[in-house]
């Protein structure tokens, strides 16, 4: 077995460990009680959930994101980069068969994602509030994912980086359920509960503002 194959096995193992770990977290949380809300509806919880995942995520939907539009868009770009990296990993055996323009697009998206990640990492170290809020896990997670994306971009562009890419993929994915990166799972829980709560009460989407 050569180094490339070994690293590919590692990446596969990391992916499986990550997916299994996230599934375990999902199953553990789902095992907990979910109190049924029997209060009479004013709005529509389902509309609330739809809003929470669509219009409610728009940069203009919240005061916080209007105030920190650039930081929010940085975060969005960073996360687009992360999901692209996961997609790129899954299709990595077929990179050679992809049209050049797609490979170039992948490199660009991943490159931008890693730059945005680095910006986030630097902000976490230098900005007073973010530094005060951050725990070692936060710093590690953002730099791990940033370097992974950067190496992904390089690997799409140049095969010489493939081994590094697979090894970093293994580490990132295996770490996913262990540290803060697992918020990727809880994002879905959280926005769903948010949507149900505010949707039931006709706060979001608000009938007046939704017109």
């Amino acid at each position: 077995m050569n180094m490339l194959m070994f690293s590919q096995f590692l990446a596969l193992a990391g992916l499986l460990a990550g997916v299994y770990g996230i599934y375990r977290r999902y199953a553990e949380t789902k095992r907990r009680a979910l109190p049924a809300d029997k209060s009479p509806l004013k709005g529509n919880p389902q509309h609330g959930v739809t809003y929470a995942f669509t219009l409610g995520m728009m940069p203009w939907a919240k005061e916080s994101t209007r105030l920190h539009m650039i930081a929010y868009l940085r975060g969005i770009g960073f996360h687009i980069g992360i999901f692209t990296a996961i997609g790129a990993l899954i299709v990595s055996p077929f990179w050679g068969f992809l049209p050049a323009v797609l490979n170039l697009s992948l490199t660009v998206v991943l490159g931008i994602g890693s730059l945005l990640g680095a910006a986030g990492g630097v902000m976490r170290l230098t900005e007073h509030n973010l530094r005060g809020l951050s725990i070692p896990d936060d710093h590690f997670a953002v730099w791990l994912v940033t370097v992974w994306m950067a190496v992904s971009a390089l690997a799409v562009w140049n095969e010489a980086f493939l081994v590094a890419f697979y090894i970093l993929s293994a580490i990132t994915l295996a770490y996913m359920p262990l540290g803060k990166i697992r918020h990727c799972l809880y994002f879905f829980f959280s926005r769903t509960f948010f949507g149900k709560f505010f949707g039931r009460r006709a706060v979001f989407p608000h009938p007046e503002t939704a017109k």
Partner: protein
Amino acid sequence: MTETIELALKTLEAQLNQPLETALEACARCGLCAEACHYYRAEPKVEHIPAYRSEQLRNVYRYEHDFLSRVFPAWTGAKKLDEVTLANLSEMAYSQCTLCRRCTVNCPLGVDTPLMMRAIRAMATATGNAPEILVMLADAAIEKGKDPSFYKDMFLEQIREMEEQLRDITGDPNASIPVEKQGTKILYVPLAGAHTILPPAVVFNAAKEDWTLSIFEAANYGVFLADVNRAKAVAKRIVDEANRLGVKEIVIAECGHAYASYRWDVPNWFAGQFDFKVRSLIEVLAEYIRDGKIKVDPTAIPEGVTYHDSCNLARNGGLIEEPRYVLNKITTDFREMTPNKAEAICCGGGGGLVALAEYTERRLAAGKPKADQIKKTGARVVVAACENCRLQIGDLNEHYNLNVRITALTDLVVRAMRLPKPLPGTEAEHLFEGEGALVEK
């Protein structure tokens, strides 16, 4: 581990359902919630960022539940709960968060920070770390429910006096305040005090409503304690009363937390025994005006009027347009604060804070963003449909020299009804005068 810590952790475990675990897990510590919090706006420091506050509970949760945190606590800030940490958590949850949920609506992930603050409040209540006065107020309410006979005669005597006043100011010799009348459509639940009985009585009589007055008050301090048993015991008085009287709906006085709990929580606490419609008095006012059941003078209030959205009524209760509908029918110069509605800034008086004298300084400081908002409108009258908000804005009025009048929505409606005589109190320039000064003898 001491018994206290064991009990605190047991209380946390008992509450750990899907929404709470999600709130404990979802935060990415992006810090975008900072300005959402009125404490942070008033004094921008890391400790006032909602994410920082929730992190204090997360540290305890992680120590108990997270594999990595157990192996390497420093990596995640995990911390074993001890007495000092519990005391600090309790103080934070009761004095630095009004449970307004403004951080939740501003969080990209929708993290429910107040849910975590409630979890801490419950831990504090279970272990005797909750503010004593909130416990006293909740227990006093429960006591009233156990044996109303010790005050019922006095209460009825006062109601008869109010009835005389009602007839005098309305000029209607048949106007009445029925108490615990069987089989009416509406059971109106006031707060303790004539100011939440007389003005609604004027409205109900004018609308020829089939109503009766509860002998209990809507306020529920068990809710602030996050103590479901106490909160249920307080609410049970009214649920039992409504069942006994066979009413169709319960109408809650202008009170934020009471409305939010009776409208959204009580139906869950008493599932199967609770078939009542719950409305706020604000919704009833809007209905009466819309249906022409009461006549109001649209030019009655010429002064600049602004409306403060109580967090429990608007963001957490869904009562957003109803008060505005009413105000637009009785005022000629209505001015919105910015931001408002679901994005409204908390006045700083919620979560039981107005009853906690030990935190007055913090409460007034945290109310500065609201005071600034009020000032910016240039309005002379601030309408708040929540008693705690009115008390807080009254204090802010004095503290920040706002020079405004603070009033309930119903009082303004009654003024717009152009009664033969003014309602006592509402024509006065001051509605919240008279501090209880301590005089040593």
